[in-house]
């Protein structure tokens, strides 16, 4: 050892700092392997050094729940109050869409029916026509008719009523906070930092403290959903208001608007398009989360999917419910997108539009009134429903019989040659080495202070005693990111080369992104059963989209003059790609990979359902055991991993862009 140290000391005089750092990192990795006895502490993190973060978090939450008081009321009373408030609020859409209202007891009961299925389908169809023409109308009709005919209506209405309330709260709260941050510049920094954090914390982690503080049930599901779906709306609002041309602000002031008038008469209406894009995002995130929130008792379609996953032979039913989720998601997505595109019109066109709107509303109310007389209009009689559950079960068993050997061979291959070796390697990796690798990489990207911050983030995993689960997370995440990139980048490349491919991929990505993450698990489990491979495939499918999108977009943005310069210099097609286009598009592509990592991390938690043993599993266990400390610490660890990847890639992209003069 002294030899090395000596050599190092001499090197110090001649070599730049980069070499020293590289040598130090190599030492930190290799030495624990070379001398496992002497440096046992550097290889496996000593159990005695573990800081009981989970216990602290647990104690903190217990303190919140039991002892924290704001003088007039306690924290617990506050959460109770909020949850009962949401409970009342939720009762309204639930009665309207799902249960109707029944007065009196069973005998002389008077029943006000819920919104009639016929009315809702008619209204959705007419409004879709108003928003996006015939194609959207067909889509709306088919989507909702599917839900009805296949007997998913009751669950879907529970979900829909929750979605409506959550979207309302998310949008209102998001716009409110966004305006606040826009108006009060001092708050902006704090708001942005909070949003950054909230958006890296995995979906599941929200559930843990909520279950603890609010309890299991639809209300905590709602709250989790709102918390999850609101941040993008805040961001969009801030951005949208900033993007309003300064001339419009000047106009407002020159016409003598009061500050309130400036905001509501000029800025907000002018930002309409951007704000509606935010609303679309909120709707999709809400749907995604409300399905997941079935875990803590939100009910609805999510519960059906979850239930199917838990049962051995429930896959057929689960697929049916999953498809209902897909139908709901696609219809809501396309309708809200069409709303963004909707331009104000005048004259006859405007009148036509108004008429369609009222026609939809009239159908909605008319059919509902009719269902006083014809109960079949409120709830479709069972004999009219079709279930494909048995068909899907048949499909599942057919798949099991016929594809099992193929799928199993693939599964075994992946496990033996890729997954297990990587997993073993990473779990056996010296923790000091991991810290050193991160520190070295961060140092080369952003200097000492940056390296210190990044190392602190990664250090959380061993220090909090999460080594094995953390490394499992890293292993699953990195393999899925590699595979997703290996699939996504070439697809994106193809998309950049042909218009038809571009369109096809665009439609595919749209659909993939519309599906709530939970739904991905169903077909995957069908093919690969429970285990790491299922998780891997689900993550790859879910996280692949940004790799395709950003590569396509990045390559398309290469200026034609550069391509011509490459061609004129005598490049072959491959040379042009490798020497001109890829280097130019690389920052954009890396941003795509960054997104892939973020999505993989969030999907990882959900895929713990199909039997991985990572941090996500710990969160899931924490929910079922109501151990908020464990769940939170695992959630934090995942969030830290996300922040780490995000900041490192962000630095790299910024440096690269600066060098290229963007």
């Amino acid at each position: 050892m002294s030899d090395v140290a000596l050599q190092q000391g001499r090197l110090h005089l001649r070599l730049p700092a980069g070499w020293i750092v590289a040598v130090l990192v190599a030492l930190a990795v290799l030495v624990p392997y070379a001398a496992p006895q002497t440096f046992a502490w550097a290889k496996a993190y000593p159990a005695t050094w573990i800081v009981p973060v989970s216990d602290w978090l647990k104690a903190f939450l217990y303190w919140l729940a039991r002892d924290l008081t704001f003088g007039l009321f306690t924290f617990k009373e506050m959460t109770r109050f909020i949850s009962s408030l949401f409970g009342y609020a939720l009762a309204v859409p639930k009665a309207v869409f799902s249960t109707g209202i029944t007065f009196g007891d069973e005998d002389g009961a008077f029943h006000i029916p819920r919104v009639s299925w016929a009315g809702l389908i008619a209204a959705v169809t007419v409004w879709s026509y108003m928003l996006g023409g015939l194609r959207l109308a067909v889509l709306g009709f088919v989507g909702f008719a599917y839900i009805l005919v296949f007997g998913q209506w009751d669950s879907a209405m529970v979900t829909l009523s929750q979605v409506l309330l959550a979207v309302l709260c998310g949008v209102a709260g998001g716009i409110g906070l966004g305006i606040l941050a826009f108006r009060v510049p001092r708050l902006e920094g704090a708001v942005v930092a909070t949003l950054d954090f909230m958006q890296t914390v995995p979906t599941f982690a929200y559930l843990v403290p909520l279950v603890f503080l609010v309890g299991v049930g639809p209300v905590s599901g709602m709250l989790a959903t709102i918390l999850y779906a609101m941040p993008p709306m805040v961001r969009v609002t801030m951005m949208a208001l900033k993007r309003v041309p300064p001339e419009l602000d000047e106009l407002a002031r020159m016409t003598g608007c009061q500050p309130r008038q400036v905001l509501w008469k000029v800025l907000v209406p002018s930002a309409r398009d951007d704000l509606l894009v935010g609303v679309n995002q909120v709707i999709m995130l809400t749907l995604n989360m409300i399905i997941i929130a079935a875990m803590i008792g939100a009910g609805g379609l999510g519960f059906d999917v979850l239930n199917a996953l838990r049962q051995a032979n429930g896959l057929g039913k689960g697929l049916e419910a999953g498809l209902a989720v897909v139908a709901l998601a696609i219809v809501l997505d396309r309708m809200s997108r069409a709303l963004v595109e909707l331009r104000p019109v005048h004259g006859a066109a405007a009148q036509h539009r108004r008429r369609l709107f009222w026609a939809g509303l009239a159908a909605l109310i008319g059919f509902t009134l009719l269902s006083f007389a014809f109960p079949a209009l409120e709830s479709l009689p069972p004999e009219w429903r079709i279930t494909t559950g048995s068909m899907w079960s048949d499909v599942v068993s057919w798949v099991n019989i016929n594809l099992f050997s193929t799928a199993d061979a693939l599964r075994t291959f992946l496990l033996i040659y890729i997954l297990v070796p990587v997993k073993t390697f990473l779990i056996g990796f010296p923790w000091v080495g991991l810290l050193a690798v991160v520190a070295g990489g961060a140092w080369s990207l952003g200097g000492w202070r940056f390296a210190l911050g990044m190392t602190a983030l990664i250090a959380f995993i061993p220090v909090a005693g999460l080594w094995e689960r953390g490394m499992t997370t890293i292993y699953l995440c990195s393999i899925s990111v590699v595979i997703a990139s290996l699939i996504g980048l070439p697809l994106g490349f193809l998309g950049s080369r042909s218009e038809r491919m571009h369109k096809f991929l665009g439609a595919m990505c749209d659909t993939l992104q519309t599906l709530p993450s939970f739904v991905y698990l169903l077909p995957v489990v069908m093919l690969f059963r429970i285990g790491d491979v299922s998780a891997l495939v689900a993550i790859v499918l879910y996280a692949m989209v940004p790799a395709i999108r950003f590569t396509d977009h990045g390559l398309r943005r290469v200026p034609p003059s550069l391509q011509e310069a490459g061609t004129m210099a005598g490049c072959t097609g491959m040379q042009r790609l490798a020497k001109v286009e890829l280097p130019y598009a690389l920052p954009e592509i890396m941003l795509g990979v960054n997104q892939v990592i973020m999505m993989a991390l969030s999907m990882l938690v959900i895929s713990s359902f199909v039997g991985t043993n990572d941090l996500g599993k710990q969160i899931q266990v924490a929910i079922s055991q109501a151990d908020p400390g464990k769940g939170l610490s695992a959630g934090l660890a995942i969030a830290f991993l996300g922040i780490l990847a995000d900041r490192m890639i962000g630095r790299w992209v910024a440096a690269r862009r600066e060098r290229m003069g963007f």
Partner: protein
Amino acid sequence: MAMVTLAPTPDSSPGKTRLSADAPPALVCRNLWKVYGANAETFLRENPEATPAEIRAAGLFAAVRDATLEIRQGEIFIIMGLSGSGKSTLVRCLSRLVEPTAGLVFYEHQNLLRMTPDELIQLRRHKMGMVFQNFALLPHRTVLGNVAFPLEVQGLPKEEREERARKVIDLVGLTERAGHYPRELSGGQQQRVGIARSLAAEPALWFLDEPFSALDPLIRHEMQNEFLRLQRMLSKTIVFITHDFDEAIRLGDRIAIMKDGVIIQVGTAEELVLKPASDYVAAFTRHVARAKVLTAGGVCVPVIPGEPLGPIVPASARLAEVAAAVLSADAPAAVVDANGALLGKLVKASLIADLVGGGQ
């Protein structure tokens, strides 16, 4: 060269309303500064005569330096300069869209910079109108909704404001389009909406910030005529920003030329052509169609008593209008003012020199 043209020259050109120099000032600014950067105010208080180098050395940026102007009631006052010359900032200081760092702004003897936010709102609602370069139309409102907007802000009832808005829309010739949305209109039509909106509240003071710069040349010319037509009807006090010198001499009664935040010269187009204060101004005026800018009174020379004179031309006439008469006559032309008093003569040779730009 004789400088007699500063005498009033009413109805000299079809569009403009020449005003006497003693029309009361409407908008006045004195020693106005706008300096960007930390502690700009303190710096300026300590260095009231700061030079550009000192300002830069202090890490500050001066967008407007020591501007003093008097804009008279009913005149079209042009602020001209290239981009980055500070003309936009100056006009925003005059309307207090931008808070000046130092100096005074008076509108009809009220100190604009001392006004409370409420007073300012009232002033803007009733006295000021502004037209923007990129139109600044509200995309979610129809033409009618846009034009009625200032009245809506004032809280007028719907019927009244729409009635008044319709009148202004008629005025700019968009009657047929009142129900359209901005995106359904051409650029020229959009700016007509912008103009109509700025006039809806019947302001006395009208700011136009490069209103025609975003339009293509043919439309621009048409809109300039439209603007002159409106001003003949309305006689507002106008502050008009442009970077186009041709537009400036076409529209303006007086022109202020700005460079690097400083007003270099203020004068009529003719004064700028004949007596440029610096090479910079001279460079702007070099390519001007002189025949259309110079007047007989501006270039005439003193008469030798008893000299025989030929045709009589009014002092306010442009050289382009009198050239034929002067050149075809044997004797020099007599230049007379509006009351018929003899001001000087126009000699053929010097007239040609004036027209080709070698007169100085």
